[in-house]
């Protein structure tokens, strides 16, 4: 059971698609301007991920290797179309308008295709479903965290609830620039946490290749 749970939790933290694998940057930067948008996008992506993972896993023995990518894309696109139709029918109009063009773009979100290729095509339907859910939840959480921080600083609200009264607001954080800055701090914080953990356990810290401090001489944190 623990291994089943670990398949799910993998996407939440250890291999969080946004903060560790650094996939799906386009929606991450574009839709995380408020917590609500982030939540909507996250749920939509989770649905697509879980569904496509399940179906791809079920068909994995049937699909020949040469045409696997068109097949995956067709499956993913089907789910995206379903989500799009559903959202148009049931989601609040303003959310729908805000997410608008980003929903169709889930088709080419590299998290979805990435998990299909890396996981669902090699594992059984149950595990794939779990992986999809986990990755989707991780994506949603990361997006919501980003969105919450940006919304808080830009407007003093979270989920449109006033948190800081009389906040003048910093417009910078509402813009794409703000998304980059907050994401950078998230990545740095993530790295720092892992480093601390490794040190506590007495293991050598191996940062992801994109964030490897070995060749960089800017800070001395990794060598304290």
């Amino acid at each position: 059971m623990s291994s089943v749970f670990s398949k799910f939790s993998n996407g939440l933290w250890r291999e969080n698609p946004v903060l560790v694998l650094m996939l799906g940057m386009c929606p991450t930067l574009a839709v995380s301007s408020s917590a609500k948008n982030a939540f909507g996008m996250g749920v939509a992506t989770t649905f697509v991920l879980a569904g496509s993972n399940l179906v791809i896993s079920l068909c994995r023995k049937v699909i020949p290797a040469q045409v696997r990518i068109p097949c995956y894309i067709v499956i993913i696109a089907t789910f995206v179309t379903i989500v799009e139709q559903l959202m148009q029918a049931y989601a609040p109009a303003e959310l729908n308008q805000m997410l608008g063009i980003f929903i169709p773009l889930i088709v080419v979100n590299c998290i979805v295709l990435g998990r299909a290729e890396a996981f669902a095509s090699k594992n059984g339907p149950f595990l794939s479903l779990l992986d999809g859910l986990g990755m989707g939840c991780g994506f949603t959480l990361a997006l919501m965290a980003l969105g919450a921080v940006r919304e808080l600083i830009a407007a003093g609200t979270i989920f449109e609830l006033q948190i800081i009264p009389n906040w003048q607001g910093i417009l910078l954080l509402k813009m794409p620039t703000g998304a980059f800055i907050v994401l950078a701090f998230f990545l740095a914080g993530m790295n720092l946490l892992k480093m601390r953990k490794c040190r506590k356990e007495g293991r050598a810290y191996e940062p992801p290749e994109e964030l490897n401090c070995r060749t960089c001489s800017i800070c001395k944190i990794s060598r304290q």
Partner: protein
Amino acid sequence: MSENEIRMPDTSRLIVSSSPHFHTTDSVSKIMLWVIAALLPVTAVSVWHYGLPALEVIFFCTAGCVAVEVLCARLMRRPIEINDGSALVTGLLLGLNLPPGTPIWICLVGALLAIGLGKMVFGGIGCNPFNPAIVGRVGLLIAFPQTMNTWMTGPDAYTTATPLKMLSDAHLAGQEGATNAMSEMLSQVSYGDWLLLNQHGGSIGEISALALILGGILLIALNIIRWQIPFFYILTVAVFTGLAWLSDSSLYAPPQYHLLSGGLLLGAFFMATDMVTSPVSRTGAIVFAIGCGIITCVIRLWGSYPEGVSFAILIMNALTPLIDRMTAGKPFGAPKKKGLKL
């Protein structure tokens, strides 16, 4: 050794190091102190003119920058290098780039943006690709457009339009309106007064063109900045706006208007010449300055922002490594044709 009591040197405490064994007495902190000295005239004039609001902004920007640098160095477990004075210079320049009367907390956010985001995340002094003071200023401009566009024209008088803003508004009013607004505005300008004391509103450091030029000349005389950068920057702007003016004097302001308004002189003498973010070779400096001039003019004449100096310098900062490569000279005695490949 006993005869004549000759004292032989003690070899146990010698230092060995690479040649050369003579060094200049110049240091980074001396250079930075001279930059500060060159900024003093304009600081003094602005404090005299605006009073406390200007002093407050300058003080909190400077103190904020130094504090942020110490904080970042602590967090990054790097040696604290504030005594080289570069944080002071950044803080002073940031303060001079803000409107007088900017709230203190915005000054501190600016310091955080300038030093934290503009300098320390890249590895501290010498590693930043962009001029930290401009990063701070542009960050504030985007974050607080309202505050950053309220200017003081005197100790108690406020306006929301600098000369360049008026110009840009006049442009937006369309051909007919532009001509009227322009001629009305230009008729009020007295360039002689303007040179000494700008009473039309603007950043703290835009107060006196003369004080800026004095400081710039001091730096050029001391060989701290390269004369090519301010010279070609200002020249490019003059030529560019001059050509525009000649082509249609009813639509475009004369070059002297452009030279004296906005942050051009402050930018040309103190911001574009920041050593870390400008090309190292003299040819590179010329390319850099001309680039800055063209972008400034394009933004001023046809952009949606009234002022383009900061953006121009930032954009050219990004191109600096490329300019360095392109303008790397051939070594002494190298064959004529074989240059450095990109």
